[in-house]
């Protein structure tokens, strides 16, 4: 049986984090009441054909192109993609067809411990369409309602080369892309709110062949899991067809999350899109000074940060990967390092305690009440012996809930570690007297008995006793 190889390219749409739309000053706030963020320009009213280009949207698109290692266009031009649809106010979408903002870029992705450069065919700026609500499902709906709040919200579309070969590669690429875009702060990249959308072009070819097979376009994948499952399903479906000697139909298919399969959209009309330069939007030269400003506004990207975390901080690859997976998390780590420069220890705490609590509360790091220097302070208190590691966890939980400083919590709750020998000796005496059996066991060589006795001292002191000191004092006492 012939073995097949999948050839996958992604088209990713990302909504930009601007206050206003691409060509007018209407707000882009998510979740406003329908049709309350529209004006003659974005509603396509007669006489409203006077688009006014948003500077920030242009800057963000250039930033994206630069972060994805693209060549940036010297002149910014816009084109119209003409077609009729109810969510498209003007009968055309303004996009960059002839001269995209960025071309010929790449994004390195770690696949099975190797780095693979995925080619970026182009990055371009365009406007979003409105939203449609159907009465019931689209097939049986007698009419649809249209909300134009989203119409003309700025989008960046990132088109990859067909360099991906598996669903897993596609998933890893998308994660890396999302992470990079979050780093440069151009979008909130929320798939569930539609601010990051991903379509996939998938075709199969006999392994070793250079020619491309017939492709299908896969849409409606609304999560990373859906991207993975949808592509996986489509590869399997096409493999089945080809192995039975059939041919794949070039078509658009929708991923149905509930039934776990892709479905043909059975689109009746094949629209012939027309593109031509928008006669209203004059070209704009990108001046070097502005480009430099945008370039300098790009922060250190995940790859270089990962490298620094492993090489300069000596973190294990796993830690570095986790910590740099989000710019906010990596920033948090590095800010905490300022007060507590124990790299691995801090990493452990963030990855276990902090992330554990964040996950349990379904929170983002940005919502965390514990300021990074305060986490550093807490860890310093452990090292100085002021509190035990165990107490520290309790203190941290308190800090996480209330946002109080660690010293204050320790003071108010009287959680300071007892390291005073005289105080502890009194308790050791009481415990030894109360547990003659254990003392005898110890003397008979059962070392476990010592642990039991230490535990009893800790219990008596509500965990505040310095465990190392208790150990020492007990041993001394018992050997007398």
């Amino acid at each position: 049986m012939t073995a097949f190889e999948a050839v996958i390219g992604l088209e990713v749409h990302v909504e930009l984090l601007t206050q206003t739309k691409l060509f007018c000053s209407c707000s882009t706030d998510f979740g406003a009441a329908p049709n309350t963020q529209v004006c003659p320009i974005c509603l396509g009213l007669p006489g409203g054909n006077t688009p006014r280009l948003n500077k920030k949207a242009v800057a963000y698109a250039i930033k994206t192109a630069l972060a994805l290692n693209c060549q940036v266009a010297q002149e910014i031009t816009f084109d119209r993609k003409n077609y009729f649809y109810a969510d498209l106010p003007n009968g055309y979408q303004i996009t960059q067809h002839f001269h995209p903002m960025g071309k010929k870029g790449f994004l390195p992705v770690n696949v099975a411990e190797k780095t693979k450069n995925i080619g970026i065919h182009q990055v371009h700026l365009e406007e979003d369409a409105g939203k449609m609500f159907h009465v019931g499902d689209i097939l049986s709906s007698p009419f649809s309602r249209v909300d134009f709040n989203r119409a003309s919200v700025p989008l960046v579309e990132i088109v990859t080369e067909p360099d991906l070969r598996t669903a897993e590669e596609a998933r890893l690429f998308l994660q890396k892309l999302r992470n990079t875009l979050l780093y440069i702060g151009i979008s909130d990249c929320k798939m569930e709110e539609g601010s990051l959308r991903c379509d996939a072009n998938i075709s199969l070819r006999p392994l070793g062949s250079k020619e491309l097979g017939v492709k299908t376009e896969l849409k409606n994948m609304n999560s990373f899991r859906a991207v993975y499952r949808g592509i996986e399903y489509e590869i399997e479906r096409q493999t089945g067809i080809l192995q039975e000697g059939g041919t794949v139909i070039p078509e658009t298919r929708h991923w149905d999350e509930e039934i776990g399969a892709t479905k043909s959209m059975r689109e009746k009309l094949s629209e012939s899109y027309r593109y031509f330069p928008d006669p209203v939007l004059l070209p704009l030269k990108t001046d070097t000074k502005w480009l430099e400003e945008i370039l300098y506004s790009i922060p250190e990207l995940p790859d270089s940060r990962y490298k620094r975390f492993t090489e300069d901080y000596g973190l294990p690859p796993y830690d570095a990967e986790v910590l740099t997976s989000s710019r906010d998390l990596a920033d948090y780590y590095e800010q905490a390092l300022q007060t507590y420069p124990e790299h691995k220890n801090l990493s452990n705490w963030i990855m276990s305690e902090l992330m554990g609590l964040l996950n349990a509360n379904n929170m983002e790091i940005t919502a965390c009440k514990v300021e990074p220097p305060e986490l550093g302070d807490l860890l310093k208190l452990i090292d100085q012996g002021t509190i035990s590691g165990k107490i520290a966890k309790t203190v941290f939980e308190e800090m996480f809930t209330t946002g109080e400083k660690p010293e204050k919590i320790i003071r108010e709750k009287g959680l300071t570690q007892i390291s005073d020998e005289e105080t502890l000796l009194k308790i050791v005496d009481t415990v030894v007297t109360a547990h003659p059996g254990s003392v005898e066991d110890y003397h008979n060589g059962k070392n476990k008995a010592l642990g039991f006795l230490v535990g009893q001292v800790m219990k008596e002191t509500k965990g505040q006793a310095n465990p190392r000191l208790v150990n020492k004092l007990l041993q001394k006492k018992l050997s007398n």
Partner: protein
Amino acid sequence: MDPANLSVQQITAKINKKELLLTELGAILAGRSKYAQKKLNLFISFDPQLFTEQIKKNEQSTQVNRPPLWGVPVAIADNITTVDQKTTCASRLLAAYQPPFEAQAVSLLQENGALLIGKTNLEEFGLGCAGNSSYFKPVKNPWDIKRTAGSGAAAAVASGLATFALASDVRGEIRQAASYCGVIALKPTYGKIPREGLIDSASSLEQTGILARRVSDLAWALQVLAVPGNNNPPAVKRPLYPEILGNIPAKTRIAVPADWDQAPLLEEGIKNNFREQLNKLARVGLEINYVTLPHFQYASLVATIIGAVEAFSNLSNLDGVRFGYRKEGKHLQEMYIKTRSAGFSSKLKKFLTLGGLLSTKKYYNSHFLQGQKMRSIIKKELLDCLQENELLLTPTTPCNAILLDSSPPAGEELPDPAAYYTAAANLAGFPSLNFPVSTNGLPYGLQFMAKKEDEGVLLQIAFLLEKEPIKWPIFALELQEV
């Protein structure tokens, strides 16, 4: 003197001296407009009450420094948005459309004290002058009601109902209509008058312009309207137009294409009269230079190609969803087809289909792209010519106003022969002016073109030619009796 024939400056002066009451002028104009509407069908919206309210507002104003257009009656073509009156573009699709915003040009006129007398009839979406596409029936020519006026704006100015009017120019419409009605018209440099609120069918060609019966009135209108728009970078420093009219440069060179008489359908009467006009100009000391513009002949064709493709796209927002007329259908696509097929005139349906055809893959390079390249050549030829000469002169139209029920129907040709001389200025974005002369008892025009931002020279030549007042059409004399 007939109060309806006062210039901008005379109106302001007489009002200030209390020799003229706005209410008096308003009453005269309202009466005549009503009569003219019956005879010529020149308005789409004319609301005497709205007009009276504006007059009242002006009369009650205590403003000390009155702006330059105080009390000046103006007409606005119905493809320029107004908030008080509907804006229909003479299309069934917009027959009841009430814009929620005012065109910047209209706001400027009102801020400067002008009175909006009404919204004038035009060809559907302002395309052409043949009188065969308005949903509200054609406008009749005040010189001969069997002929097209080209536009209600031109008819209103020619009849003395408005001191000046605003209308748009895609391939020469305001100049052609002015040629047909015997008035002055200026299509300024592309972008000179703000675009906001102009419902344009072809954005790269179209420009709002001004029609008037006096050069000085046109100069005052341009003075007020030529401001940087929201999307226009500031224009070059403009002169004070009304003050420079008499200062035409001593040695003004006028270029005339050597093959000007090769236009298809050029009428014998116009050919002869134009020759006489050239002699007259030479006699007053102007230098006439015959030049070769080998590609000027393609201007109307190229403007048709570009205009059709841009109109195909620009008018796609007329889909029966957010505004305008809708004809119901079983599903979305059927609704689109029914709405647009019933909503547009036959002429526009054909033109949009042409635009659809010329932008398909098959025709894009050979027609649309080739056309845009030819546009560069034509523009370069004009620019070279206008470096050597201050002005370029041709007839405005190859014929007098065409008959409304001619057979076979005129004005359906592709490209439109009426745009033979006018379209080049739209392709290049250059300013161009029609100055009325007459032959066969009917008006036609001399068309002058200058390089960008050189409106001053156009006004100066017109001022020089305006020694004797422009003739009134018979209808205007009839109106003065109303």
